[in-house]
């Protein structure tokens, strides 16, 4: 582009390419037309707003990635809408075709926008400041100070001291500063592109596994150790870091004094032993303090109680003896658990019931937990005899008991009380099947092992992103001219980008020129200062900036 005749809009200012109003004929013409539309600022705004709107459904409908149980619930509640959820990928909004389409378009637009500006900025960085416009009086902060062409050297020096790059054109100095603004802007947009690429590629190598550990138990980092495991598409099983972890002790602290918050959790600390490279060490995991082992991060994501329950058959033979994890249902850690005994007894036996860490009787006679710690632990189980349905080939959750083919023999409407036990107690199973003993109870913690190779690069790109955003929004980019006109020096500035301090900057420059001039001549400085701005200001243009882009 050549020098613009409009001094308010520097001719060398690339603001994307103006979209022609009519597409030229032919395939290439159309392609160019579409490309220009796509890379225009207007499209960028529309796509940004679309992206914002498109992100919202993911906060209204449960997402597979963040709330899988919610997904199951919604589908169970609205079976007639499942087809719609699936057709619109409403449970996977952020990887859905329509969401992806928007951000891919946005980033394509970004590339199309940034690349020409990169080239242009590269040239501008190496070029001289542009020629001085013919008429400075139309520019921002226009004013004159006493001086003539012999003062231009000094003006040049002052400007350079203020961080301007300068060039002499005849009897004028042209100066420009704030290249960092555009550099920052370009870096900012590029780092967003970088983030997208790093996350898209890098997360394919990571994995995420969860393992429930009762105190005293441990696991080695192998695929088969995990209760649940997910990994990126390029994950290789051989890359699992070799280490083992034992949960020695799970320490839990609850509020005991603040009456409004009795029982509120204050601290969870998992004390663990880690074996890595043949050496064992003690370590701890807290809620906000993951443990790093061999490049993997270990988190403590939940906890609960695992009562040790043993079952003996009618002859006193032990057929079951395990710490069985129960799932907490409320803040007072009322916990629900299921035990299935397909073998060993005369009939298949299913037990389902609650563990109350601090049991208190309700008016109805039922039990409830009043406090999450172990003040009065009680186990209350319903028993079912019959067919557990395990051999029908349908996968069953270990926390769900299918009772259709079973007869309830204790609790509920069975006519027999639920089997209620304190630690150490033993009770007969109705029907002479055997006995159940509540041996003791331990805590368990769920440890999540998380490997994400994108963390470090993402962190550094984000630092770059933020720094370049600061530069791009806060560094003023401006041009300044000092021109000798007879016995006066004319001064004016031009903003490139938002620059609310431009006028002040011109005033400041005027004052410096006057001060330095009078120091050089030994004049009375104050008299000269009064002259500053005396001729300031023809009617100013509405906005101090050159900008609106196409």
């Amino acid at each position, binding site marked *: 582009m050549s020098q613009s005749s409009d001094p308010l809009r520097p001719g060398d200012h690339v603001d994307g390419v103006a979209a022609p109003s009519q597409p030229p004929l032919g395939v290439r013409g159309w392609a160019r037309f579409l490309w220009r539309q796509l890379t225009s600022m207007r499209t960028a705004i529309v796509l940004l707003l679309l992206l*914002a709107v498109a992100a919202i459904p993911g906060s209204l409908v449960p*997402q597979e990635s963040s*709330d899988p149980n919610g997904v199951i619930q919604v589908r169970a509640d609205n079976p007639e809408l499942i087809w719609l959820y699936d057709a619109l990928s409403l449970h996977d909004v952020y990887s859905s075709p329509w969401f992806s389409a928007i951000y891919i378009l946005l980033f394509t637009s970004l590339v199309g926008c940034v690349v020409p500006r990169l080239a242009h900025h590269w040239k501008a960085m190496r070029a001289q400041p542009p020629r001085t416009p013919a008429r400075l009086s139309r520019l921002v902060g226009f004013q004159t100070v006493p001086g003539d062409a012999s003062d231009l050297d000094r003006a040049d020096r002052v400007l350079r001291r203020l961080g301007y790059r300068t060039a002499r054109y005849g009897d004028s100095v042209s100066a420009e500063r704030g290249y960092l603004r555009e550099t920052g802007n370009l870096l900012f947009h590029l780092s967003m592109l970088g983030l997208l690429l790093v996350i898209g590629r890098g997360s394919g190598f990571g994995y995420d596994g969860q393992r429930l550990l009762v105190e005293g138990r441990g696991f080695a980092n192998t695929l088969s150790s995990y209760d649940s495991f997910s990994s990126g598409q390029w994950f290789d099983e051989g890359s699992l870091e070799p280490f083992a972890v034992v949960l020695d002790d799970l320490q839990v602290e609850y*509020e005991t004094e603040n009456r409004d918050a009795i029982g*509120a959790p204050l*601290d969870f600390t998992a004390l663990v032993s880690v074996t890595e490279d043949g050496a064992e060490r003690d370590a701890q995991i807290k809620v906000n303090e993951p443990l790093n082992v061999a490049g993997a991060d270990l988190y403590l994501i939940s906890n609960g109680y695992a009562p040790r329950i043993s079952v003996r058959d009618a002859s006193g033979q032990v057929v079951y003896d395990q710490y069985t994890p129960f799932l907490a249902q409320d803040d007072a850690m009322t916990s629900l658990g299921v035990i299935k005994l397909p073998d060993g007894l005369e009939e298949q036996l299913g037990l389902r019931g609650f563990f109350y860490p601090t049991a208190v009787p309700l008016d109805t006679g039922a039990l409830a937990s009043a406090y999450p710690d172990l003040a009065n632990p009680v186990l209350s189980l319903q028993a079912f005899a019959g067919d557990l349905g395990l051999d029908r080939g349908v996968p069953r959750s270990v926390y769900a008991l299918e009772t259709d083919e079973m007869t309830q023999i204790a609790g509920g409407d069975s006519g027999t009380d639920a089997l209620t036990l304190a630690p150490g107690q033993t009770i007969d199973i109705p029907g002479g099947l055997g006995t159940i003993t509540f041996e003791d109870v331990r805590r368990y913690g769920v440890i999540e092992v998380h490997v994400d190779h994108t963390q470090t690069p993402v962190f550094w790109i984000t630092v770059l992103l933020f720094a370049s955003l600061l530069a791009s929004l806060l560094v003023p980019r401006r041009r300044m001219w000092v021109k000798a006109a007879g016995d006066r020096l004319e001064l004016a500035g031009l903003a490139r980008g*938002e620059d609310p301090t*431009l006028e002040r900057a011109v005033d400041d420059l005027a004052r410096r020129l006057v001060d330095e001039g009078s120091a050089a001549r030994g004049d009375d400085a104050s008299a000269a200062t009064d002259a500053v*701005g005396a001729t300031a200001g023809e009617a100013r243009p*509405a906005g101090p900036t050159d900008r609106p882009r196409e």
Partner: protein
Amino acid sequence: MPPAELDAWSLLLVYSAMAVYTLAFVAYAVDVARRSAATAVPEEARELVSAGAPGAPARPAASAPAPAARPGRGARIGFALIVIAWALHLGGAVMRGLAAGRVPWANMYEFALTGVAVIVGVFVLSRLWRDLNFLGVFISGLATVFLGLATVNFYVTPTPLPPALQSYWLVIHVFVATLATGFFALGSGLSVLQLIKERRSSGFLRALPSTVQLEDLAYRVGVIGFIFWTFTLIAGAIWAEHAWGRYWGWDTKEVWTFVIWVVYAGYIHARATRGWRGSRSAWLQLVGFAAIIFNYSVVNLFFKGLHAYSGL
């Protein structure tokens, strides 16, 4: 002092602050009414005068309000009252922090308490930089209404922090978010005035800076808000990494933080785009602020997610 007593003091201070905010609002409103009645110099004439003011070595920058916008007596009283109310309010927030033994921004009530203090604080301190007293009605009204709603609906006695919140990131992340909100609120106030003034320019509106000046101010304030919001987003991701094992998981609160960020990015672009300056970009700023309010109220109260520990 035992925590319960400290909290009672805190409440007392907050109620007093609300009373004084109300007085400030009345003073500002009377001022506005009086100006509406008074006949003012036509704006164009005044602008020419101010722009051409000769012999002023340090003329105000282009976006400074015209001199005629200098506050009247009502507005000066309003400002004094707002400063007093703010001092009471700050005292209340500090007492609340002492009562709880931690920073006072860990549940809905405290978010509102501290958030409104920050909004008013940004307004009061902006006085050092620029006279924005014409926003007094907006700010004192907003403070009265928000504080009132929060104390009536969200008040809870102070309770200890759940482990997931026990992190210095709570201090940083949440505080910077409230700071951003403070700037966005100010920017929205300016945008609202800009939009009103674009439609009508009679009465007290004539005493306001021009729409272009309002828009420039709104933008500058909004940009600072945007910087803080970007930081909030990043700090939140780092915290999520520590607490939940992933830096981004599209949790509802994360979604809304992202939505707000993108809307404001759109706003910044709009300001730099021909045809989108002026009222369109002002509307975008308002959409962004509406999303912030929505995020604070509806999302906190009704949406399910990891952040649902506001202990309301």
